[in-house]
């Protein structure tokens, strides 16, 4: 694996790693094995400590880490016999939302997920994971197909938000998301939604109505990004106000679980999903297989009713 890019708050860890590599590079490395081992231990404990107490804003930074696995990485790691399906049959094919059939463990399913893009070219094509209406319509078209085939649906959410642009508005960004919310609520097959990175507002929810909604430990999910919130409520987005907004928005997995807005948190490997994508993929696979098996025992009428009741119950009123 290529070197992990270091976030600013990980500097102390990077410093120890630098020392380790210097010592390990010395000809007398075997003579100082004890010192090296101690440094490794210090590094591990510092990493666990840092990742065990991330602030909400730090969590957002981890969720956006450039090396964090994306939908197609997970597809590659957990789906056998991947069969990608393109296009919304209306306007085009939006690479910011990927759809296709695959086998996860023993389960045949449809996977729908945001894709941000790995290199600059792909990122530009994907608009950094900001989908257009054709992306949401493609997602729905394939989900309806899965429903017809009686296949469960797994969605992987990872978007800063739906794309704000002229074409997107012209082609009905709002309508495409609204229709997905309505239609996903009545799909007669199990739907599992997992926020794998960023859960930015309506653009995330547009593929986020399911029987089980989970978040990876270091992902975020909220009505607006911290920067967007800071710019409006604090009149300026900077390091300080982004921090304040991230705190105020209760956007972490733990907060969302505590508030009853999601069903589960999937723990990440120490140091985040990007430090051990394979372990993360395995955890996701286990989660999906377990939950789908559980949901497949429920008849479609009950499934749809329970999904309705789950979202129906979300309110903070008196």
């Amino acid at each position, binding site marked *: 694996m290529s070197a992990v890019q270091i976030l600013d708050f990980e500097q102390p860890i990077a410093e120890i790693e630098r020392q380790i590599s210097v010592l390990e590079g010395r000809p007398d490395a075997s003579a100082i094995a004890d010192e090296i081992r101690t440094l490794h231990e210090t590094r591990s404990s510092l990493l666990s400590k840092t990742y065990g107490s991330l602030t909400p804003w730090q969590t957002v930074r981890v969720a956006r880490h450039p090396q964090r696995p994306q939908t197609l990485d997970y597809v590659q790691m957990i789906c056998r016999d991947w069969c990608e399906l393109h296009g919304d049959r209306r306007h085009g094919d939006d690479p910011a939302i990927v759809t296709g059939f695959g086998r996860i463990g023993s389960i045949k399913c449809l996977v729908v997920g945001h894709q941000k893009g790995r290199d600059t070219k792909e990122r530009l094509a994907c608009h950094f994971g900001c989908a257009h209406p054709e992306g949401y319509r493609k997602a729905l078209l394939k989900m309806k197909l899965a429903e017809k085939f009686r296949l469960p649906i797994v969605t992987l959410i990872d978007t800063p938000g739906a794309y704000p642009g002229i074409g997107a508005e012209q082609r009905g960004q709002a*309508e495409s998301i609204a229709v997905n*919310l309505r239609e996903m609520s009545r799909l007669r097959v199990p739907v599992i939604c997992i926020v794998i990175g960023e859960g930015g507002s309506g653009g995330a929810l*547009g593929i986020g109505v399911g029987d089980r909604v989970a978040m990876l430990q270091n992902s975020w999910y909220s009505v607006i990004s911290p920067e967007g919130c800071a710019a409006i409520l604090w009149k300026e987005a900077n390091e300080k106000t982004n921090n304040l907004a991230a705190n105020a*928005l209760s956007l972490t997995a733990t907060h969302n679980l505590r508030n009853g807005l999601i069903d589960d948190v999937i723990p990440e490997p120490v140091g985040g999903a990007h430090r051990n994508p394979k372990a993360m993929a395995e955890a996701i696979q286990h989660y999906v297989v377990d939950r789908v098996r559980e949901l497949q025992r429920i008849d479609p009428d009950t499934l749809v009713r329970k999904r309705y009741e789950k979202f129906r119950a979300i309110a903070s009123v008196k």
Partner: protein
Amino acid sequence: MPEPTWTEATVAVKKTVPDGLWTQCPECEETIFRKSLEANLMVCPKCDHHLRISARRRIEQLLDPGTFEPLDADMSPMDPLGFVDQKPYIDRLRETQRKSGEIDGVQTGTGFIKGRKLVVGVMDFTFMAGSMGSVVGERLTRCIEHATDHSLPLVIVSCSGGARMQESGFSLMQMAKTSAALARFDDSGGLYISVLADPTTGGVTASYAMLGDVIFAEPKALIGFAGPRVIQQTIRQALPEGFQTAEFLEKAGFVDRIVHRSALRTEISRIIDYSGK
């Protein structure tokens, strides 16, 4: 002295702040005699600009006189996240409640339009920019369910800056909740007319506002998902003339009819008659 409850505050507001005699049209800047503006449904007699109106005034204009019966009128907001920005959310709420005399940003109930019984939900832009939090989502969901249970036509008048940030994930999930309720209403064969007033943006547009069987919009209303400022910052180019207006949306295929405020009652009645509801 204890803080006045919202109802006491309403009375206080009504006593101390008499309506101005004159109002300036925000569009053409014409000074208009308040009474004639009101008689003209708060549409500028000179330039035909549709001024923003409160939910209560909208209900007065829309329904047959004296027929409105509110649903869940006592439901009030909470502060589930203990949200504090430059001011605590709870203080913002109290202040807005005191100023507006309303508990939150929507009115729901039953009533009649030209003798036809229906369920209405009307958003109130004067309350925290018509933002949708739990109360708006919950009251609208209940009124959708009421329409489903009683087989009544449903009209929702939207005007909103979008989801309410101060309730974060709770606000976001109101989009899913209201849309799911509309799916059930649709399954039951119900008629839903969505009326879009200036402005309808963000999470409100991306949920119930765009899910009408028939969608009306008031002339020149701003309607969109992302706000024009956000779009401009993203694409760094000038927006086309008339972008995100009701007329733009009609041309793009997302609005059925642009309806002048004076024709709204007639147009709603026609659709109800065609639907056979």
